[in-house]
């Protein structure tokens, strides 16, 4: 069987922001994380680091000990989608290894001993999966994964067994939101065993009309079958549905939509205080304006980057200090004005 590469094309950029692939792995002969003692958690970290050292030729990563990392930096890692919220907020021995390009991270002692994630721009789950697959193989020179011939790769949670792989795509769905079709998509997703989450994964509210769609079933279907269905059928289906909604909006209420995206841009170009929700909401409309040709600028890449840059952790890093909510609103408005002023 041949495995074509993804061709990251600009064609999907109107709807797809990023793609991800994840593998969950646990070391054999150890209790799962929730039952491991402190000593065992340290032993898991040591083994994971040995595995990463063995894989150095495949992926060079930097280890970050999260027990030793302050809340500000943990938040930043979380905002960049390198660690999960629970991993940022947890206590106890745990860490994350991050590749130099910050598009690959390996969480240790999150829900599983080891969780590898690769991130890509556009609809590129295949490239993401290739990357973690190679890492997974390289780590096995040193690490022995818990595996059962019937149940596959073993995990504490039965939702993660089998291939233990999850593919996800971050989709921008303002059209479906505005036309009220989103519930239909949610229902269809449920029937197809897909999870739909917000911008920051499990439990997060959808912010800026971003929805992270991923497969829920990990057992009984090979990685390639899962990937093919996700890459060739599921995501393209949602993309088409969103595009149809946008076309309908343009046909039926072009003036209202044009008015709205210009207003949203004007507000962010001149506001002095902006809350994060407001920024996400207005940026979402600006993004829609860019993709539908209602706005001539700003460039799409700039807008895509802003969704992350307006998060409080990023603003704190930019200003190099802890910000009160009020200060964060001011810093956010300053950033938005600077970035969008000559758009």
């Amino acid at each position: 069987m041949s495995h074509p590469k993804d061709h990251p094309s600009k064609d999907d950029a109107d709807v797809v922001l990023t793609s991800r692939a994840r593998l969950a792995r646990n070391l054999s002969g150890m209790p799962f994380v929730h039952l491991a003692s402190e000593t065992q958690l340290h032993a898991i970290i040591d083994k994971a680091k040995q595995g990463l050292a063995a894989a150095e030729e495949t992926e060079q990563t930097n280890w970050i000990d999260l027990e030793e990392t302050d809340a500000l930096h943990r938040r930043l890692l979380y905002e960049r989608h390198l660690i999960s919220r629970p991993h940022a907020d947890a206590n106890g021995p745990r860490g994350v290894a991050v590749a130099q390009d910050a598009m690959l991270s390996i969480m240790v002692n999150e829900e599983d001993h080891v969780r590898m994630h690769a991130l890509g721009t556009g609809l590129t789950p295949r490239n993401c999966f290739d990357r973690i697959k190679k890492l997974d193989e390289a780590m096995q020179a040193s690490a022995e994964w818990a595996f059962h011939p019937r149940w596959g790769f073993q995990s504490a949670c039965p939702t993660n067994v089998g291939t233990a792989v999850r593919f996800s795509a971050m989709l921008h769905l303002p059209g479906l939101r505005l036309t009220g079709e989103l519930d239909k998509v949610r229902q269809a997703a449920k029937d197809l065993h897909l999870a739909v989450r917000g911008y920051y994964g499990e439990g997060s509210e959808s912010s800026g009309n971003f929805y992270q769609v991923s497969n829920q079933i990990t057992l009984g279907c090979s990685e390639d079958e899962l990937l093919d269905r996700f890459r060739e059928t599921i995501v393209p289906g949602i993309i088409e549905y969103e595009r149809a909604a946008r076309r309908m909006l343009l046909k039926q209420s072009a003036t209202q939509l044009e008015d709205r995206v210009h207003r949203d841009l004007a507000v962010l170009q001149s506001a002095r205080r902006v809350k994060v929700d407001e920024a996400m909401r207005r940026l979402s409309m600006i993004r829609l304006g860019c993709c539908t040709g209602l706005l001539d600028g700003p460039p799409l890449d700039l807008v895509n980057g802003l969704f992350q840059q307006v998060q409080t952790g990023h603003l704190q890093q930019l200003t190099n200090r802890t910000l009160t909510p009020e200060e964060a609103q001011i810093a956010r408005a300053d950033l938005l004005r600077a970035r969008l002023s000559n758009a």
Partner: protein
Amino acid sequence: MKCDRCNRPAVVHQLVIKDGNKHEMHLCEAHAAEAGIPNPGKHPVNELMSSLTTQVKSAGMPTCKGCGCTLTDIRKSSRFGCPQCYDAFGQATEALVRSAQGGSSQHVGRAPLGQAPENQSQYESQRLVQELDRAVRAEQYERAAEIKSKLADLADQRPSKKEDTK
């Protein structure tokens, strides 16, 4: 209340003053022992009582040798304690995984490097037989024919070591 360091029930509760800040500490038996804190519940009488109840509890109650979890623990938390739990709780494992996985109960796909791929094709054919059964019952005869031909292919490939899990 759960232990601060794991999900077992906390048995030791202490108020700790560290760097001038008060904070509460809740630990399970194992973690309390690790931290060198005597367990107040470990009075001889309590110990006798708890050993009696454990005996009652563990009589006829399947327990995992790998992590000490009982069937009740697994059912309550819907989580396994360690890899050995999967075999220790046969039926419960089956029920738990099936309900989480839309009815699937057989892994198909990659295995760790060096693990016999023959096993994989063997399981693949098991899975196909299950699927065939379902297709026939649902009167999807075209689908059934498709699966039958896949099964035949698989039988042909068996002797020659194929399967590149890539």
